């Protein structure tokens, strides 16, 4: 588990992170979203014990980030925004070097390197120099490097930045699989689609924490829920029949034979809406909920 309480970081006179508090449960993929300079990387660096907070506390696996930095770094894997691989070394040499620094024993290290490279379809590239590889392959190697010692916690700073869609998907699928293995993942990203697909909890930062929750809870917090009902034909009497529910339902728009409604609690109110429409003679083709995208939530929260 990761616990953050009032985490604050000043760089001289610049406030980078302000009074951040959140909890990441074991096995979660926690997304850190925010514009450039929002404090995402600084937060990750503090949690990895790389830089010290000015005030506040943070614990990774019960260990204090200020006093137990070295132990924390043994339990985590970190993929920074820039991969920072050694160009003059081969793929295998890069991974072997980091494995040894982490103190992984020889046999396990050899097995892990082989397993991870094969898993990401990179085994044939093992003897190539990093300088010869594409950005996508380098990114994958950087992720393997962070996993070589089988950490319980993984910090990923923009893991798919600069990747082509296919490589990005491969990396995303890989991250989701890691969660299935019980790893706790903190993912900083600009890519809202990625966060929506991968994360089960999201924090939106803009120096301080401005929103926190699951994508679903953020959606219901910042957007009222929209329901579209498509009928075979739409008559005025049907529209008027909904006046009975005027406290719970607001008609946003009528598009052809479709009613677009803002519904307070669709699970409770939708059956009543359908009943009233049917009573008014409507034949219903479809009822569907229109969910706001994470991008819409993000833009709304950030502009506040």
């Amino acid at each position, binding site marked *: 588990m990761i616990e953050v309480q009032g985490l604050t970081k000043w760089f001289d006179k610049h406030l980078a992170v302000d009074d951040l508090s959140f909890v990441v449960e074991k096995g979660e993929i926690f997304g850190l979203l925010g514009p450039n300079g929002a404090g995402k990387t600084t937060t990750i660096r503090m949690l990895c014990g790389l830089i010290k907070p000015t005030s506040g506390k943070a614990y990774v696996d019960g260990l204090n980030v200020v006093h137990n930095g*070295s132990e924390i770094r043994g339990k985590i894997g970190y993929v920074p925004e820039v991969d920072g691989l050694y160009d003059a070394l081969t793929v295998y040499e890069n991974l072997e070097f980091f494995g040894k620094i982490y103190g992984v024993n020889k046999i396990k290290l050899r097995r892990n390197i082989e397993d991870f490279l094969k898993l990401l379809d990179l085994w044939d590239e093992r003897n190539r120099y990093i300088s010869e590889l594409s950005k996508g392959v380098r990114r994958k190697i950087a992720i393997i490097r962070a996993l070589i010692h089988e950490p319980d916690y993984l910090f990923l700073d923009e893991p798919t930045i600069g990747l082509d869609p296919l490589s990005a998907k491969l990396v995303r699928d890989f991250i989701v699989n890691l969660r299935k293995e019980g790893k706790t993942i903190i993912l900083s990203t600009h890519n809202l689609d990625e966060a929506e697909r991968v994360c089960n909890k999201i924090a939106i930062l803009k120096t301080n924490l401005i929103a926190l929750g699951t994508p679903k809870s953020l959606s219901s917090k910042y957007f009222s829920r929209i329901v579209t009902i498509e009928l075979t034909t739409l008559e005025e009497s049907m529209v008027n029949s909904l006046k009975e529910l005027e406290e719970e339902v607001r008609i946003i728009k009528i598009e052809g034979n479709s009613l677009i409604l803002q519904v307070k609690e669709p699970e409770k109110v939708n059956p009543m809406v359908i009943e009233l429409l049917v009573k008014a003679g409507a034949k219903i083709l479809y009822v569907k909920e229109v969910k706001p995208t994470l991008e819409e939530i993000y833009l709304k929260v950030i502009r506040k």
Partner: protein
Amino acid sequence: MIDLRRSFLISKKDIQEIYRRKYIIISVFVLPVAFSIIFPILLILLVNSNSINESQVIRLREIFPELVYAEPKKIFLSYILESLTTIFIILPAILPSILASYSFVGEKTNKSFEPLLSTPIKELELLLGKYLACFIPVIIPIYLSFILYSHLLNGFIGFNPLLNLKWILALLTVAPLYSILSIGFNVLISSKVSDIRSAQQLGGLIVLPSLLIFFSSLFGLTKLDISKILILDLGLALAALLLFYISSKVFSREEILVRWR
């Protein structure tokens, strides 16, 4: 507790990385070879007996009583070549700045410090590893070239003027201490600059004191003796310790990630 195993891993990785760059190998090996073989051979071939006057020969015979019956050219060259031995004090200052610039600034510009610092390695282990990576590949070619140089002198003048306590002490103490001092100086430079060339140019300033020793020895203004070497050792050791202490301060995780630009 410092885990030296990690320091050795860092130095091994750095040496592996540095030595895959051909021009670094050339820089580190060409200078010692040039000074220990090519330069003395050129001197031997080019010095003309006619340019040496009688009074100089008499003075030099006092310095090298072994050569009292030798011809003037041989006596003159013996003096010059013996004086040139101070080059083995300059090389330990020059060569680490080439390696340190790659080791520190290279890692900084490549942004490879961050993943490395996110491992359990301690800053001091990393710094020690970097020191070793700049020290070992420098000191070995210097010692080898010194052996070559002294053999060359032996072959030319019939005895080895370098096989004495003074030069052995200089080589075993001044050379490594000056190397360590140069590495420390270059760590500080590397924390302030962001390109390898600037790091090498500024790091090269550490050579200036050794040039002073070299030229004053060459022009006969002062002659290194054991007591001067010991004083030099003390000064170098204190300066190297001070620079190691300061460089360990700028070599903290936060400093490197936030302030090293």
